[in-house]
């Protein structure tokens, strides 16, 4: 027997409170039918006896205390899954919007997923060649990693993400088992269209699942978008053995949606009004990257977030950095100099890189080269700081060499074309070529044996 509950008790933001509800389970999905015939969905977020709080995904506009009939569905939020999902375009809650009809599910999965058992994880070691010197050499992307791009409004993070998708070569992956899940959260229509067109041009569109929650779509739906996307990714990776790259943009909009939901629920806020569980919530998304024993697929995540006011200490980039395995930080000053991609290498980092590079993966000199480039570029920054005080002319000869090295490093190494695809050997050789402009004694992070082989100064 299906009971319809008529009306609600209270409406607050996207939440409605209902009374006298029996047999409801936590996190259950409810269907809400309005008197005008439209239907909405909601999720039970709190239960006190027969009084329940429901979060309405499409928002509460038009709902009055009397005009609804609510039905319990008896199950939590589930995502229909099937191999046919490849190439489809879905809305933020995982419903098709491309006019190609419903997805006939082979199975349904709870969108919250379950945590991967740490002992079942395979430690990621295979590197992904992105063809971008700064990333491949200094913050190598590893299959199964979560490596976010920290950017700001107006910077070229979207171009970079597109270039990575287009050029990413995963050893052992071919067109049949490589796929992209793209989750747009609160992005503008143009941006979503830009991604769609770029995927089309690079010929991967049939291997992309797009979930679009645009900036004018309901906020609560936005909190579901990454969960639906990752449920699809896990299905493709761990059941169909595909290598899935998940691009989620923009995590800042997601976190803001979470804040809005939390405050309308009356929760005690943590830092900057974000809920105290922001860390756990973000972790429940990011930790769904990885590889597991016995399956050959992988989930690699590239979340993109725009740092409010370019502030890396803002809670969203801060907590993200604590969960993800490194970060790629874009810099407005480099962008201003016309450099692309404007990767600021010093705060950027890939934590999994050390075990996925070197002999047998890239080249034996990769790690020492990367260490030395980081260290030398850090000295460039010091020399520039000094030059801004006493003038470049007054610098010591060695500091002048560093200034010159810094200029070359930015213009030739970091800077590369949007369509330029450099092999790892090209990138490493270029690194040594630039280091060779410095005196050999300055290269203190490298063993003599390696210097003998590669230093050409």
């Amino acid at each position, binding site marked *: 027997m299906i009971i319809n509950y008529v009306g609600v008790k209270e409406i607050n933001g996207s939440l409605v409170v209902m009374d006298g509800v029996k047999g409801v389970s936590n996190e259950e999905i409810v269907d809400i039918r309005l008197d005008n015939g439209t239907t909405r969905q909601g999720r039970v977020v709190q239960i006190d006896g027969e009084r329940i709080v429901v979060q309405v995904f499409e928002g509460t506009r038009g709902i009055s205390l009397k005009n609804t009939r609510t039905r319990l569905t008896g199950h939590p939020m589930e995502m229909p899954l099937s191999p046919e999902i490849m190439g489809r375009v879905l809305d933020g809650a995982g419903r098709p919007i491309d006019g190609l009809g419903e997805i006939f599910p082979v199975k349904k999965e709870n969108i919250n997923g379950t945590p991967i058992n740490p002992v079942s994880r395979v430690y990621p070691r295979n590197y992904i060649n992105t063809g971008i010197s700064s990333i491949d050499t200094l913050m190598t992307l590893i299959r199964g990693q979560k490596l976010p791009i920290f950017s700001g409004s107006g910077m070229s993070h979207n171009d970079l993400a597109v270039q990575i998708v287009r050029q990413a070569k995963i050893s052992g992956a071919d067109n049949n088992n490589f796929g992209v899940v793209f989750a747009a959260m609160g992005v503008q229509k143009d941006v979503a269209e830009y991604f769609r067109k770029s995927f089309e041009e690079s010929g991967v569109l049939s291997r992309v699942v797009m979930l679009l929650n645009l900036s004018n779509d309901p906020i609560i739906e936005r909190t579901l978008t990454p969960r639906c996307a990752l449920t699809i990714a896990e299905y493709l990776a761990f059941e169909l053995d595909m290598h899935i790259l998940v691009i989620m943009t923009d995590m800042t909009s997601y976190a803001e949606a979470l804040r809005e939901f939390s405050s309308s629920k009356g929760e005690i806020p943590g830092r900057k009004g974000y809920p105290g569980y922001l860390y756990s919530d973000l972790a429940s998304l990011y930790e769904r990257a990885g590889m597991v024993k016995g399956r050959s697929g992988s989930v690699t995540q590239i979340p993109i977030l725009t740092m409010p006011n370019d502030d890396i200490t803002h809670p969203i980039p801060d907590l993200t950095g604590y969960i993800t395995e490194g970060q790629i930080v874009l810099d407005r000053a480099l962008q201003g100099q016309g450099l692309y991609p404007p990767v600021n290498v010093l705060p950027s980092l890939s934590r999994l890189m050390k075990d996925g590079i070197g002999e047998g993966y890239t080249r034996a000199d990769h790690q020492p080269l990367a260490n030395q480039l980081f260290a030398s570029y850090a000295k460039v920054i010091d020399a520039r700081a000094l030059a801004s005080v006493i003038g470049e002319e*007054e610098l010591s000869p060695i500091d002048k060499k560093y200034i010159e090295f810094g200029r070359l490093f930015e213009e030739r190494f970091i800077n590369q074309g949007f369509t330029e695809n450099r092999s790892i050997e090209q990138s490493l050789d270029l690194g040594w070529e630039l280091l060779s402009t410095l005196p050999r004694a300055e290269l203190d992070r490298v063993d003599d044996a390696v210097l003998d082989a590669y230093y050409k100064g």
Partner: protein
Amino acid sequence: MNNNVIFGINGPVVTVRDTDSFEMMEMVHVGEQSLVGEVIGITDRLTTIQVYEETTGLRPGDPVTGTGAPMNVLLGPGIIDNIFDGIERPLKAIEEHSGAFISRGAKVTSLDIEKRWNVTMKVKVGDRLEGGQIYATLPETPIIEHRVMLHPALSGEVVEVKPDGEYTIFDTVAVLKDDAGKTHELTLCQQWPIRTSRPVKERLAPSVPLITGQRIMDTLFPIAKGGTAAIPGGFGTGKTMNQHQLAKWCDADIIIYVGCGERGNEMSQVLSEFGELIDPKSNRPMTDRTVLIANTSNMPVAAREASIYTGITLAEYYRDMGYHVAMMADSTSRWAEALREISGRLEEMPAEEGFPAYLPSRLAEFYERGGRADVLSGGEGSVTLIGAVSPQGSDFSEPVTQNTKRFTRVFWALDKALAYARHYPAINWIDSYSEYFNDLDPWFKENLGEDFVEYRNRIGALLQEESSLMEIVKLIGADVLPDDQKLVIETARVIRVGFLQQNAFHAEDTYVPLEKQKLMMKVILHLHSKAKEVVAREIPISKLIEQGMFDKLTKMKYDIPNDRLDMFDDYIREIDEKLGVFLQ
């Protein structure tokens, strides 16, 4: 019996109405799947329970049953070389039970109950046993002897002893008659509530250092066995890397590594690395002396809160056997956030940054469980606590860092600027401190000679001097400094690059014995004193640097193998020769 049912659900917090059958901190089972929970609040109307597993799908009306006991862990052989979640459920067994993804309500016992251990009895009929005394031993791993102790609350006379042989953890190996005449069957294991510290005979002063083989930690900021340390640092500064290095190389007998709300891939790295790594002291894999507790950031938050206590209880248990235990907690900030999250669900009044007002007292309770002690089983044991702190926005003034500072005595402050320059370990030598100098200096003097302490003080002073000189250099450049100050900067560079920087991936450099650390300091200081004499004769420092000794010393950590300490004499001789030229 009771028929308590769920009334309300809010995230991991569940309430039961109108009952008086629960105790505070009692462990309960919630719902049809018997999810594990703990009572955290009682009023006459509502009992509040935090559930250690995902609460999706629970309904009002589902049963809640008490266990009559607080949150316990099972202590016995089989703990070492195992990996548990935050409430001591073995993850390998869960994997067998539910595959690669953790499902709820997994019914697994903490320890292997079928494995037979080779037990040697240490008591005979008629012996008197006090709480905490050993009545049997067994080899738990090839290097760790497990000493089975009487529960600290019991004492009495042994009335029956089984012969030596193979037993499982629940087999009775002896029978004890207590003073009231009641008999107790003694097995190989015991239960202990995780939030209660285990008793010791007497606390001892922290007068022996924990040797880590990490130069900056051993010399400039040493920690004692039984000491407490905090490693705060923003993301990417190497907290986890430092914790791994400590776990691999410190000279504790047993390592308890708690991954508290951290990354899953990191835990799988620890698993694979520690399994391959051979402990230099015993020539056995590291896992033979390591216990891992992994409650990654996406696992239930309430179990994250418990994981720290589970870890420390296991640590105390091995301390009571007379072992030196080091526990790494990575990261205590995640634990504090779990407290905040649950406190928020309970609608408690928040203090600073939303953290509950009892945060400092919880931190104090935790760190106070560290220490060196005479244990009840006779002999000496210690628990060293090393907690990583992840300050929000790398801001050390936030509440978790500040309160941790109050209760720990070593502060290894990680510095973003050093990490950006890939100076590892990125421990800032100006902001860090150790309060153990007074306790430990007698040990250093006795074991490494008076000069060790003197060298360390001189190195520290040079670094301080450089730091103030750098203020000037930043404004006007190094060229205008007089030569004696330039020399300080040059020597400090050698100290920074050649001594403080340590390469965890370099076979020789990843662990450096104390004797070599001392000789490295000696050579650097020898060069500095000689160079000072040269500079005093108004010979330009550039001439000195051309001799190449400064550069040579920055590479001596790689050039001198750990077992060729005689090579340091050659270095001293070379310095004397090359600089002697200027002094004739």
